[in-house]
């Protein structure tokens, strides 16, 4: 097992609008949303009603099947509204923040056993930050994973720079690692020269290479591939620091520096905000602009009226590309369009950043070229075979071709590069859903 991982395959998409490393705004919380839709595998049970007073850290909902998993309010205040959608599906709990924040005290004592760590996470509402692989669902409190993986950096397009965002939270991160290490061995992937390389009580793996080298799934597949029957948990660095913060101070503190990025962002930079903060209070959004919670490859469509999610520390603003270009595909040169393929001439300008939009740049077709998938998938799998197995719904083949190792985000670049414009992430997602249904 090597602690030095140099990945070759992958692609860094040269998109304009990286966040300048400075805090441009601090959003003081007003109305904050707690969204059950942020957590895959959660069927929520509401614990509060409109008008209830909550503290930062008070439970507002729980998991229906596993009621010990609580989801807490990130602010103290009053429950203003319960937002429901079709069939009364719970969409969000809106909490109106108080002027002065009042925190639930979880006791600033480092957990001594796995049970204590789990207990703390379940109570504080941070259990939801533990994601189980395979399938990318919320971890189950009664299971013990073979390892817990953290990627301390992101290579996704325009992703927040973790050294800037969390460079000053080393103490919390270490406390988080120490707490999680009670449950299972912790592995952390770091970039070269990372401030997080010095953590102890965890196996540190130096990872380099283009995107998706920073994806925790890619790192797992090289460090300790997941086989049938095995479970690992992953947690983002952001939540690792939050876990450590609870351990150190007894307070739930989810405030984070959110990177405002994208070619259509009026001003890029970092905004200090809580999860559930409305997009409107983070940045201005112009006409015809798509707001994405996360990066352009895997992010979720938020809309100008949306709120950032529990896992987001980046929003990307992107122009809707519904304009139609004459003779686009036939033009020898299209200087405004980037293509990683050498069928265009983007290779002539390797350092150019592009003002990208959401145009699909073509129509959906059957698979023709397939090597492009392998070129952007630095894992020991055959992407095209896995994709076809998912399309066919063939469980046995999906297992054989590595469905346990991937989440849609790990194959997000396949979405990007495919000349046939197939929705690879959606296909993998369907495959995973089928696995969950059939293997349950």
């Amino acid at each position: 097992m090597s602690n030095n991982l140099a990945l070759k395959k992958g692609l860094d998409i040269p998109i304009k609008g990286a966040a300048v490393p400075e805090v441009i705004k601090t959003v003081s919380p007003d109305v904050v949303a707690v969204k059950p839709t942020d957590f895959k595998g959660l069927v929520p049970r509401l614990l509060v009603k409109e008008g209830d007073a909550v503290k930062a850290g008070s439970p507002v909902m729980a998991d229906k099947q596993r009621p010990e998993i609580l989801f807490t309010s990130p602010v103290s205040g009053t429950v203003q509204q319960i937002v429901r959608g079709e069939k009364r599906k719970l969409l969000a709990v809106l909490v109106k923040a108080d002027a002065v924040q009042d925190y639930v005290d979880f006791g600033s004592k480092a957990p001594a056993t796995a049970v204590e760590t789990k207990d703390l996470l379940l109570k504080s509402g941070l259990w939801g930050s533990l994601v189980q692989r395979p399938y990318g669902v919320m971890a189950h409190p009664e299971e013990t994973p073979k390892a817990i993986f953290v990627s301390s950096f992101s290579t996704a397009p325009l992703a927040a720079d973790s050294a800037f965002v969390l460079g000053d939270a080393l103490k919390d991160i270490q406390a988080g690692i120490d707490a999680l290490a009670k449950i299972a061995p912790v592995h952390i992937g770091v970039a070269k020269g990372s401030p997080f390389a010095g953590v102890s009580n965890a196996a540190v793996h130096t990872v380099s290479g283009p995107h998706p080298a920073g994806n925790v799934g890619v790192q797992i597949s090289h460090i300790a591939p997941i086989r049938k029957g095995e479970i690992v948990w992953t947690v983002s660095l952001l939540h690792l620091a939050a876990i450590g913060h609870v351990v150190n101070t007894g307070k739930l503190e989810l405030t984070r520096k959110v990177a405002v990025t994208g070619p259509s962002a009026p001003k890029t930079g970092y905004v200090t905000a809580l999860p559930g903060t409305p997009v409107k209070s983070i940045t201005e959004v112009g006409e015809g602009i798509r707001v994405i919670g996360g990066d352009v490859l895997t992010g979720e469509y938020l809309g100008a009226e949306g709120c950032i999610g529990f896992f987001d520390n980046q929003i990307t603003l992107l122009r809707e590309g519904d304009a139609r270009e004459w003779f686009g595909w036939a033009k020898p040169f299209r200087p405004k369009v980037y293509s990683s393929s050498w069928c265009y001439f983007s290779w002539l300008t390797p350092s150019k950043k592009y003002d990208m939009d959401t145009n699909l740049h073509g129509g959906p077709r059957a698979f023709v070229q397939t090597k492009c998938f392998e070129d952007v998938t630095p894992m020991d799998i055959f992407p095209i075979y896995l994709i076809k197995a998912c399309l066919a719904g063939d469980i046995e083949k999906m297992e054989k071709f590595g469905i346990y190792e991937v989440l849609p985000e790990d194959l997000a670049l396949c979405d990007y590069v495919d000349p046939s414009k197939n929705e690879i992430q959606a296909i993998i997602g369907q495959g995973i859903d089928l696995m969950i249904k059939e293997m349950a």
Partner: protein
Amino acid sequence: MAEEKKPWWYSTYDAFDTFLRVPGTVTRKGAHVRDGIDLKRVMIMVVIALVPAALFGMYNVGLQTATLYGLEWSFLQMFFYGLLRMLPLFVVSYVVGLAIEFASSQIRGEEVNEGYLVTGFLIPLIVPVDVPLWMLALAVAFSVIFVKECFGGTGMNIWNPALVARAFLFFSYPSSMSGSSVWVSKTWAGLGDVDAISAATPLAMAHDGGFDAATGVISSANQSYSFMDMFWGFIPGSTGETSVVAILLGALILVWTGVASWKIMVSSVAGGLLVGWLGQMAGATAVPCYYQLVMGGFLFGSVFMATDPVTAAQTETGKWIYGFLVGALAVIVRLWNPGYMEGMMLAILFMNTMAPLIDHCVVSVHTGRRAKKALTA
């Protein structure tokens, strides 16, 4: 969101519309930004790569006719003669093929796929220039309907449709497709009947023992071609296949743009060379192995036909095996088959059939290795 019902002519309208303008579709799920590449661009790259071979081929059609009839034609006369002879083939190929393609897209209610842009360009380049147009139309129709649309259109077919069109002609109308009199254009020259004069391809001449080991020249009663003639392409044959230089230019474009696999090209050439060499050692032929590359359709097949991403092997290891076997089989047929000397077409079609099996083996070995690693890890 309810899908809007589309009018019955939508596929055709959409094909023309998106031909002119990039569709305004925006991403709905998955990655929010997409690469500028689409299948139209990929396919047009192949057509561009074929252009050198097509242009040289047109000139060579004129050259061969002029040589056969002893005409004093200028370069331009030769080229325009070839152009005029080739145009009807292109028109028939595209009109028949695209009509079927559009109709079946409409029946399926899908967007029209660009695959036929390449197939339609390939077919005229791999048939004798004098092939009757009705035969060509029949072959195109057969290939597009039974080899492509029946399987679900571009991306779903098992065999290369252009090659099947050629195979259809070869087996249905052998007199127009083989022998020593079909490879040079004789109609329209208006200079009387010269059927008696042989205009065989060097491949056929070498097969009949026309190779002279001392000079390296392949000759018959009235023809003689040196290695360099064959390398540059001044020989009778299918329009696109004769010039190694033009094909290499196309190969360069395909490899540079990444549209076709260089692994298949290299391994096919390696397979051809190895069997050619073995054949020479075993006394099956006097022709040195590297002549196999410049004679007949070997290189054209290796570069443009075997590399079709849909019908070739899809795994990278599989591509090495697939390409090698294409080259090797083609030369085996050339050397050890008494009746039929051009093996490239059948070698590729056979390996198209075998490609999924090769991939299956490669993937099985890989998953087996992964499972073993899991046990030891």
